[in-house]
């Protein structure tokens, strides 16, 4: 059962709209209940061929030899597709927005880096014929030592999973082996905190498990173009990826989709389109490539595992004064989207709380498992689990009610967040208050009267003096190998115009950030030496490259 609490933020809304805010029936519902909604697979083609891939049984092995002679002669087989048939057999998904180096082959070349990695594909007149042919392929492997734990993968001497990133971590800004977040001085704050709580959290991978598995049907269309019926969650993303791998102008691909049987993030990686299109190119016939359920479960990209270490400094009165987070994203064998997810995680720390000293190091680590990708709540779900269990432990440690502990530390409009942008449009406090009320969870009047619009800003809007560092530098300052991953960092910040200068700061302990303290309110001491926040994000030398990465092909 669901109720709308219209009384909250009433003055910020005009509620008498005509269509927005109305419980209209979904445009697609009639099709759903009559069985007429058309998904990518609901298209008939005369002469349809079926594609199946041969997957590596090893987590890490060299490919010594591949013999497809028997498979090519198997009944019903029209084509065997090898790595050499792929025009551009190396890519990374986010090369389309110029982020990260090409590190993943469409079909394995010299090495397989995860159990299930595609080695070759068979296109046949039926799925049964394709499976029969696959059983006739002979491959000789030289198994290699594999690494499956993110922290083991970072130790010297660990097997190199992905040669594009020999240290087994994604390289950020061509400078560091992780993404940093620095705000204030956590070490000083830990020294002055009443309690320090340090914990470890682990989230295993999660499979998207949509009821419709990844799949596509590609077929020759008119004027040397190819129609591609696809289950993708990102039409032009997949089109651009396929165009790059197959080295064809983007307008020769005519993608049709938009109605997907559940995605949840598992249909962003173009798992089937490049091969189904290549199959159609090589056979001149329609080709259907659909992952079976076992493939989707084990070899279709899952949500990546995450390990978070969280260390907090908290005062007896409940104020959190320092939060240090070290996170390891398990990218699996290839980068795909994990590099972006790690940055999104860094941007999310320390959670919806105003904490004067925050430090985070977020690693994107390569291991010999199925490459991870985005999933519902990408980069946030895992760290939110860790942060909110940690908050429960802190509340328990200082003997405060968990709801009141959240309201005390909640961020409010005008507060400065750790990624140095002011908070606005906040509503955490109101959500806590309403949830408590609905669950008959008693909270004291003081906390019932607080809100997100008052008590923020002022001293809480200032950026404290910040300790930065150089650890995690790639190769001791040597610029990263290979093509550039990100354009160089922007020029140093332009200081705020004089008028916006906060009043002269006095030296104060880093952690005595003015707070909305528990009753009676402690006097609000001024913040430490502030660093000027940028008025607007500087673009400097950034040149927003074309989204299709056409510049790169």
């Amino acid at each position, binding site marked *: 059962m669901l109720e709308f609490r219209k009384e909250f933020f009433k003055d910020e809304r005009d509620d008498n709209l005509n269509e927005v805010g109305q419980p209209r029936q979904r445009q697609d519902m009639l099709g759903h209940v009559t069985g007429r909604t058309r998904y990518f697979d609901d298209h008939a083609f005369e002469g349809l061929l079926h594609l*199946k891939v041969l997957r590596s049984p090893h987590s890490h092995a060299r490919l010594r030899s591949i013999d497809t002679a028997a498979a090519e002669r198997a*009944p019903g087989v029209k084509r065997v597709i090898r790595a050499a048939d792929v025009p551009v057999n190396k890519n990374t998904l986010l090369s389309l927005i110029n982020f990260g180096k090409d590190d993943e082959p469409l079909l394995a070349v010299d090495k397989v880096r995860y159990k299930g990695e595609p080695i070759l594909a068979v296109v046949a007149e039926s*799925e*049964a014929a394709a*499976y*029969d042919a696959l059983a006739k392929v002979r491959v000789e492997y030289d198994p290699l030592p594999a690494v499956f734990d993110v922290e083991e993968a970072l130790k010297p001497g660990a097997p190199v999973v992905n040669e594009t990133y020999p240290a087994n971590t994604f390289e950020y800004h061509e400078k560091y082996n992780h993404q940093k977040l620095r705000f204030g001085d956590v070490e000083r704050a830990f020294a002055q905190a009443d309690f320090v709580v340090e914990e470890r959290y682990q989230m295993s991978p999660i499979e998207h498990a949509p009821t419709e598995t990844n799949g596509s049907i590609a077929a020759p269309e008119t004027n040397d173009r190819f129609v591609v019926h696809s289950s993708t969650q990102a039409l032009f993303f997949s089109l651009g990826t396929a165009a790059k791998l197959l080295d064809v102008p983007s307008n020769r691909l005519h993608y049709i989709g938009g109605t997907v049987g559940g995605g949840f993030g598992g249909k962003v990686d173009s798992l089937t389109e490049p091969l189904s299109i290549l199959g159609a190119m090589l056979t001149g016939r329609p080709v259907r490539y659909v992952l*079976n359920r*076992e493939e989707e479960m084990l070899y279709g990209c899952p949500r990546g595992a995450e390990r978070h270490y969280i260390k907090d400094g908290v005062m007896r009165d409940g104020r959190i004064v320092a939060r240090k987070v070290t996170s390891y994203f398990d990218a699996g064998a290839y980068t795909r989207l994990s590099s972006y997810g790690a940055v999104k995680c860094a941007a999310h720390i320390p959670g919806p709380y105003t904490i004067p000293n925050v430090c985070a190091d977020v690693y994107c680590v390569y291991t010999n498992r199925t490459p991870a990708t985005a999933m519902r709540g990408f980069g946030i779900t895992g760290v939110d689990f860790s942060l909110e269990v940690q908050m429960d432990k802190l509340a328990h440690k200082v003997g405060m009610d968990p709801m009141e502990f959240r309201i005390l530390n909640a961020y409010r409009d005008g507060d400065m967040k750790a990624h140095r942008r002011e908070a606005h449009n906040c509503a955490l406090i109101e959500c806590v208050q309403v949830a408590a009320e609905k669950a008959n969870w008693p909270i004291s009047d003081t906390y019932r009267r607080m809100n997100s619009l008052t008590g923020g800003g002022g001293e809480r809007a200032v950026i404290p003096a910040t300790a930065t560092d150089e650890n995690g530098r790639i190769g001791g300052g040597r610029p990263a190998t290979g093509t550039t991953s990100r354009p160089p960092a922007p020029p140093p910040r332009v200081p705020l115009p004089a008028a916006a200068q906060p009043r002269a700061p006095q030296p104060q302990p880093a952690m005595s950030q003015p707070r909305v303290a528990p009753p009676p309110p402690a006097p609000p001491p001024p913040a430490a030496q502030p660093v000027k926040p940028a008025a607007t994000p500087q673009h400097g030398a950034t040149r927003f490259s074309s989204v299709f990465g056409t510049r790169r092909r």
Partner: protein
Amino acid sequence: MALQVKSFGSMSEAAAALASDRTARFMSGGTLLMRAINEGDTSISMLVRSTDAAYRQIRSESARIEIGAGARMVDILANRDLAFLHPAARIVGGPAVRAMATVGGNLFAAAPYGDLATALLALDAIVTVQGAYGSAQQIPIEQLLQSRDRATGLVTSVTVPRPASPDAFRFRKVSRVKPKGVSVLSIAAHLPLAGGRLSNARIAYGAMAPTPIRARAVERALEGRSLDAAGIAPGLAAATEGTSPATDALATAWYRREVLPVHLRRLLLGETG
């Protein structure tokens, strides 16, 4: 090579066809075999089917009931004489699977599947097996289960002695998903009482070994005991003897052994939860 499908009017003809071709497999409900075909199992070249009406019939007699191996879970659930088996038949798969899965097929389902076989084992059923030639043989279900990987011939029916009384037979399935989930473990128990004392109790475990197994040590420990907390204590102590549970996606061997005595106690004492 495409699959061949051959149907036979009698079980003996079907058994003969089966024996004549190593790559032939018998198609009963299809839930195991069709899945293998869909997933690309290339070792099957022929499907043998039986259209023999007797294959699906359920014949009640005074002391026992003969269930055709082709009878499906829904056929058992529709038969009042087999009410004691309903708790087991009711939790095999979902409604659609129960309209396809057969008694014969369940005998060959790999752990952790095979809950009906576990129930039949606790009921000490007799299995009729039709070889390639000659007349059918009657063998105890325990013997069939232990030799099922090497078994030749075709199971044509399963004969179940009626339990001592309606509530003498109990069945409990532990799964992580409700209402339908694969077994973490299952327990079937036939608990005849003589003067308030257990005599010839038969207990079987599902998913505690590669096939359903009898809990002989527990049976011995319960002989002559009362069906109460004190009475069953020795039985609980022996609960995990002879078990060799697997670790799979649902649970570890450790967990299955750890919770087996708890569920056995709850079954024997009729505790809920």
